[in-house]
């Protein structure tokens, strides 16, 4: 059985009425940028396992998870109703969708909605480990005002000449990826880190791999 830990909500940040970050304080948890924890939620007389990517950096004292209300879901309404001070049991860290240093190639991060969560610490780590190649983030959301961490991302783009950040409507994401990194040139040396919810993730994977990018150059996590 996995080791159970307990954190306590010490802060709640509301990004939008249905989207929040919960900051958890627990014993120090070593993890790698991109990993997730699995929350154990007592709902309806049983324990639900709900994984959440860590949006915080491993160097930070507290853990940040970022979630939105899933229509018809049972885990997210429970978590979003918790007040500051509430305990949350969890296991982890888990997952192999990780980035520990700037890759030796142009690297494209693609996030859709709250799936920016694991990409954020990956990006921070890449920027902190002397990148020598461009780092680009293409961030999809339903609308521009739904972009999370926007001010931070814009600041990073100003501070780091190798980093650029663009956003796109979620419905246009697939075509935009094909336009930029398949149709525009024959360079297939790029690395990709893709995170999103649902079928868009394998769709992007397929667009890129079928265009000739190496299988291992296209890393992804589908929620």
């Amino acid at each position, binding site marked *: 059985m996995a080791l159970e830990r307990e954190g306590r909500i010490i802060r709640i940040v509301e990004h939008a009425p249905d989207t929040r970050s919960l900051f958890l304080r627990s014993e120090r948890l070593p993890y790698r940028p991109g990993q997730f924890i699995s929350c154990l939620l007592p709902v309806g007389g049983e324990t639900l396992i*709900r994984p959440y990517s860590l949006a915080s950096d491993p160097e930070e004292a507290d853990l940040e998870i970022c979630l939105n209300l899933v229509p018809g879901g049972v885990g997210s309404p429970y978590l979003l109703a918790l007040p500051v001070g509430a305990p949350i049991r969890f296991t982890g860290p*888990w997952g192999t969708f990780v980035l520990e240093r700037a890759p030796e190639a142009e690297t494209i991060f693609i996030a859709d909605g709250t799936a920016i969560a694991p990409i954020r610490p990956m990006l921070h780590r890449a920027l902190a480990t002397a990148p020598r190649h461009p780092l680009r983030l293409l961030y999809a959301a339903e609308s521009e005002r739904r972009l999370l961490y926007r001010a931070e991302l814009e600041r990073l783009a100003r501070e780091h000449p190798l980093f650029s950040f663009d956003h796109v409507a979620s419905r246009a994401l697939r075509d935009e990826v094909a336009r930029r990194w398949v149709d525009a040139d024959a360079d297939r040396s790029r690395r990709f880190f893709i995170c999103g919810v649902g079928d868009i993730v394998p769709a992007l994977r397929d667009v890129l791999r079928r265009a000739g990018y190496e299988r291992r150059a296209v890393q992804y996590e589908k929620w």
Partner: protein
Amino acid sequence: MAKLRVLYESGEPERVIEFDPREAPFQHDGRPGSILDVLLGHGIHLEHACGGNCACTTCHVIVKQGVERLSPSEEAEDDLLDKAPGLTPTSRLGCQAVIEDPDAEIVVVVPRYTINQM
């Protein structure tokens, strides 16, 4: 009735389940009728840190018998298995490998370790 026999590298006693695949899902995690679904639905624990969403490798099992009777693996499962410790040619993720055949006799081994957890 299909039969699923579970052996443990850790030395835990083996478990045997007989079930009707047409009654799947047996609970709510993993693909309906998957090895994970069958085990959890019959009170047998199998680690599944991501909730059975094909996002980790903690439900890795090694199929010793009946691998051809399981649903074929998809690209997402194969990509994850690449990162599983102790990968074998008959490794599967318990949350993805579905037992559809009502006469299937499947034997799996649950490995001792996972590298997902630091």
